């Protein structure tokens, strides 16, 4: 057991260092921050932004002479912003996961890993943890925006809800990265890996609306697979065990398929 943990740690550290040494990773992080900043500003100050809407409600209540229900603009802003981060992530994450195995295959280093006394599982888990950690460091600076909004919530928003939203974001990212890692293990082209991952994630994101065109059990099963629906629940502070199970299933499925595909890759070489 100690050996396995040491192996996972070795893979984790090497992978994480290679992200911090890679210009691409910084470009991705930069774009992520830029988009997040644009969304935050738009959600707050834009024509459909939170402030405009609050002003509209105020105006309406004055005209009708009915006292308006209090509007907690910062809380709404936080929720919208978390949803926006999830949306940006589906474009950004495939770029982070595309090289996980495709790059190793291209360089021939997969042969080193496959002939070292280390299991496919340990390699896959170490890699996944590393890329999730890198994503976390991308999210950290954005907490500053959210702290400003959080300080202004009235009545004060529960910390648990904010934490739950972020847990949701991490689980969402880990699910997408895990599936992306599997797709990356199927090819030695990083571009193909990114495109296919994006297509898959988009499908899992939209499957909620697609499922409405199917009636009966099939529709409800498909609806449950939706990333959007479960992520939305978590950002609104709804802790549903089925959401946690769904995200955990995606993560484990990605790890399992990756380990299997590397094993199969060794068999089918011709």
């Amino acid at each position: 057991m100690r050996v396995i943990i040491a192996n996972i740690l070795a893979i984790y550290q090497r992978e994480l260092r290679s992200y911090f040494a890679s210009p691409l990773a910084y470009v991705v992080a930069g774009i992520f921050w830029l988009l997040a900043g644009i969304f935050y500003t738009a959600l707050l100050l834009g024509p459909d932004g939170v402030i405009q809407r609050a002003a509209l409600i105020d105006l309406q209540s004055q005209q009708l002479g009915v006292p308006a229900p209090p509007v907690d603009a910062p809380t709404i802003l936080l929720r919208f912003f978390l949803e926006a981060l999830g949306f940006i992530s589906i474009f950004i994450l495939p770029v982070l996961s595309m090289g996980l195995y495709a790059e190793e295959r291209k360089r021939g280093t997969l042969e080193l890993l496959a002939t070292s006394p280390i299991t496919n599982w340990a390699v896959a888990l170490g890699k996944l943890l590393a890329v999730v950690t890198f994503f976390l460091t991308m999210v950290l600076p954005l907490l500053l925006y959210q702290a400003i909004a959080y300080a202004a919530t009235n009545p004060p928003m529960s910390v648990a809800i904010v934490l739950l939203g972020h847990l949701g974001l991490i689980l969402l990212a880990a699910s997408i990265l895990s599936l992306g890692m599997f797709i990356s293990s199927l090819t030695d082209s990083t571009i193909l890996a990114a495109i296919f991952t994006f297509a898959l994630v988009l499908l899992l994101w939209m499957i909620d609306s697609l499922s409405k065109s199917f009636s009966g059990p099939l529709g409800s099963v498909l609806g449950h697979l939706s990333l959007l629906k479960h992520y939305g629940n978590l950002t609104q502070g709804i802790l549903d065990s089925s959401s946690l199970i769904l995200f955990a299933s995606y993560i484990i499925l990605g790890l399992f398929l990756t380990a299997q595909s590397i094993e199969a890759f060794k068999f089918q070489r011709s």
Partner: protein
Amino acid sequence: MIEVEHLSKLYGSTTAIEDVTFAVERGEILGFLGPNGAGKTTTMRILTGYLPATSGTAKVAGFEVHEDSLAVRRQIGYLPETPPLYPEMTVEGFLHFVARIKGVSAGDRAHQVESAMSRCGLMEKRTTLIRKLSKGYKQRVGIAQAIVHDPPAIILDEPTVGLDPRQIIEVRNLIKSLAGDRTIILSTHILPEVSMTCSRVAIINRGRIVATNTPENLMTQLSEASSYEVEVAADTDEAETQLISSLKGLAGVKQVERLTINLPEHRFKLRVTTEQGAESVGRAIAATVVGGGLGLEEMRRTQVSLEDVFLQLTTEEAPLETDTESQTETTGEAA
């Protein structure tokens, strides 16, 4: 140390290796010699547990390579055809990483990395990024990663390919210095390399082992056997048949064959292969021809070169050129 028995590997319906059997003792350097696509890489990949065999068994230090894969991987250092390197890492950082995943304990790691670097002459490049190294240095880092955990068995796939002559000599010396109580298998398609580095040679062709011997034995065997080419003028066909049979009767003559070359009428050419160490056969051949009343037009002694026998062992009926071509294609797919 390494025992391979009746190993076969099929890729779909193509046979990569067939019924390969050999053994390597502790401390030996075995050279795996064969043309491209002969099955060298496949055999090595099976030994390292990278590929499963279709049938047969391979054992390293008593562990079966497929069943006890993890145990075998601990015993082996492996340099694949293309050195597996992470370009964004430094030489030292990369070797530390390899030592970790090969299971070298934290306390020994610094020392092991240090010793692998000094053996491979990498001390002055320790903080250089791998992507900035020359090809020769990259190859050395490749060898260093194969020995960093001090494995009892080392497998090197074409360790000198693509290097310049000076680097080739350095790498060969490095490999020789690694021997001792370690077991080394290296593959190559360059003949002299084998005689310079290996204590034993296995010649492999089309997936089969065609000869196993020490390089000295192979060399002596080859250099002592020589042959004569004799061009004779004769009036009748009977004279020719008669000459061949009397030549075959001479002491020290191993084989007489007729060479099919376009010659003027009433002329023919024979190749007389002599046995090892046979002396003054040439004189007897000349005497036989002249004594039979035939005209000795030309007589030439040809020394059999290492290359000749290698080609003889590794080519069958198919003409050489198309043969190697089709086999290179198979390698391309295999890689």
